[in-house]
């Protein structure tokens, strides 16, 4: 970030050059569309007087009629004053005297066009570039939008495209045919002009490169699948958007996921394949997953995020029957007393805020009053510590009595992160109770939790 203090000149120079270059670009003329004869222009809200010029005729013999509202007589007289023009006042007005038509005037009620603010994008290397701009208001009838494109620093003639208005999205869109063989990194100049009877507006010249305007469509068919026997894994798979041909050009992806109760996503970058295994999913929790794409070398913009896909990791049916959780399962099921297992349900652990989790906040699991967390923490922590020690002693006592029955009763088939050997069953060891301390003291990084996934600590409650 911090740039070494360089000589002031280089920083100034590019700006100067830019300004000079911009001034040197010949501006494309963008004149208002001329008004055809017998056409009168009025802005909405303005007053306009139409004149029949039936000279020599008595005022009361001239009558006016608006073609679209035939039959409804307007004021009489040579001059027809119209106040506070509205859009539907537009139309053809004819005046007649004694049944003889004298003149027809066309009244346009419109504002000059809005200044176009163009943005261009391209769905893939083999698609045309689309340049578009949004409008605040429906364009007046007869509004024409034109776009020119030419290679920068060349004398070649610009190619001209007419743009179309799409009322559904309230946008003008121009399709820019890309001639084959144009270098993706060469700058192109895009100019725009919108005109109608009331005026014209030129957009600022835009300099684009074909690779810089790439913006893929979001990935398709995102699926989230559980992996049998992996209670913390989810396999996400997706497909290239149909507008992107992966035979030659590739995309890179970003995957983001969160357990449903959490608010923030965890993002995984630099994914070049179309699948990804999430290894730190919450047990038994539904996860929301989205994927987005960008050209593999980082040209252009990221796509929008794909549609949300959801999935829940595999749950051991046996766990569902008895007590779930990684901590209670550290012990052979028969050994874990009800009391112990209940103090450490994983979902509560996972939902702990960071600081609490960091210093024995497990006790907080029951009531999250938050009024005096620290006193509560201290009390709870020491209580837990005591319980854990007690359980440890009981376990050890039982174990020794059973003469080293189950060795390694529970392998860590539960997750990619080998569970930290909180209590390796080594009955003979005089230190066997010490490993029991960590669970009570809320280990800084117990096996199944990914430190990078902050959601474990800041989760929605």
């Amino acid at each position, binding site marked *: *970030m911090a*740039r*070494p203090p*360089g000589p002031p*000149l*280089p*920083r100034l*120079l*590019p700006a100067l*050059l*830019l300004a000079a*270059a911009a001034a040197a670009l010949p501006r494309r003329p963008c004149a208002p569309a001329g008004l055809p004869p017998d056409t009168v222009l009025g802005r909405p809200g303005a007053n306009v007087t139409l004149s029949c010029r039936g000279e020599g005729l008595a005022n009361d013999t001239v009558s006016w009629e608006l073609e679209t509202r035939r039959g409804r007589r307007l004021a009489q007289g040579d001059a027809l004053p119209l106040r506070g023009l509205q859009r539907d006042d537009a139309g053809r007005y004819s005046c007649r005297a004694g049944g003889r038509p004298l003149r027809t005037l066309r009244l346009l009620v419109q504002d000059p066009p809005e200044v176009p603010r163009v943005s261009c994008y391209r769905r893939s290397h083999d698609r045309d570039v689309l340049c578009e701009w949004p409008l605040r208001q429906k364009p007046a009838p007869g509004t024409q939008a034109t776009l020119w494109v030419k290679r920068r*620093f060349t004398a070649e003639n610009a190619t001209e495209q007419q743009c179309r208005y799409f009322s559904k999205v309230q946008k003008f869109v121009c399709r820019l045919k890309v001639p*084959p*063989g144009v*270098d993706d*990194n060469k*700058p192109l100049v895009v100019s725009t002009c919108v005109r109608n009877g009331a005026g014209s507006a030129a957009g600022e010249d835009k300099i684009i490169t074909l690779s810089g305007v790439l913006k893929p469509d979001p990935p398709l068919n995102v699926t989230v699948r559980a992996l049998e026997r992996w209670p913390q894994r989810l396999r996400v798979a997706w497909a290239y958007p149909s507008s992107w*041909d992966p*035979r*030659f*050009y*590739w995309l890179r992806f970003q995957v983001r996921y969160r357990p449903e109760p959490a608010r923030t996503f965890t993002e995984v970058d630099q994914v070049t394949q179309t699948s990804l295994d999430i290894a730190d999913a919450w047990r038994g929790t539904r996860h929301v997953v989205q994927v987005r794409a960008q050209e593999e*070398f980082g040209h252009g913009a990221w796509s929008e995020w794909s549609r949300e896909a959801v999935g829940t990791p595999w749950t051991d049916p046996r766990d569902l029957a008895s007590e779930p959780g990684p901590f209670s399962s550290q012990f052979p099921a028969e050994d874990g007393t009800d009391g112990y297992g209940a103090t450490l349900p994983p979902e509560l652990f996972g939902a702990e805020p960071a600081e609490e989790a960091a210093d024995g906040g497990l006790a907080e699991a029951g009531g999250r009053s938050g009024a005096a967390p620290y006193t509560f923490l201290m009390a709870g922590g020491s209580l837990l510590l005591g319980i854990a020690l007690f359980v440890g002693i009981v376990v050890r006592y039982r174990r020794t009595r059973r003469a080293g029955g189950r060795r390694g009763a529970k392998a860590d088939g539960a997750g990619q992160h080998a569970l930290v050997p909180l209590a390796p069953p080594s009955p003979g060891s005089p230190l066997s109770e010490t490993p029991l301390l960590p669970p009570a003291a809320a280990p800084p990084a117990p096996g199944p939790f990914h430190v990078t996934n902050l959601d474990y600590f800041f989760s929605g409650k």
Partner: protein
Amino acid sequence: MCEKFTVCENSMEMLVQNNLNLPKVTEEDGCLLSGFNEEKCLRKISSGLFTFQTYLEYVQETFTSERQKVESLCYSTKHLATTIRQMVINPDEVIIPDSATQKSLLAKLKSDKTWIEKITTHLILRDFTSFMEKTVRAVRYLKNTRSFSV
């Protein structure tokens, strides 16, 4: 470059009218999906990478704060150029600049103006990146469509 010398994209693109003669993959080289031509494309890539060698040596001298990185870039570029040359049916058609050409190019690139030096370095690295992107796509396409091992 952008962070260290404030020579970034957009800021200096006005000066693109350079006469550095950096190798470029164009449509005629048969390296794009339409009109892909294995032999022609590989020949171009190999020749281009050999040519870049000299330019990268120049960068090695000017971009001293990243010397180690540039050195390994030089080395691996040479390695890649040689590998791809072996894939060409007629390796003799790959153009490898002789030492006299290299020397005169290096001399031509040198400038006593720091500013020009920086711009030159920037342009070389930019075009090298672009060349490598095209190389990656072409070689990957070959690997996926023909059955040979790279």
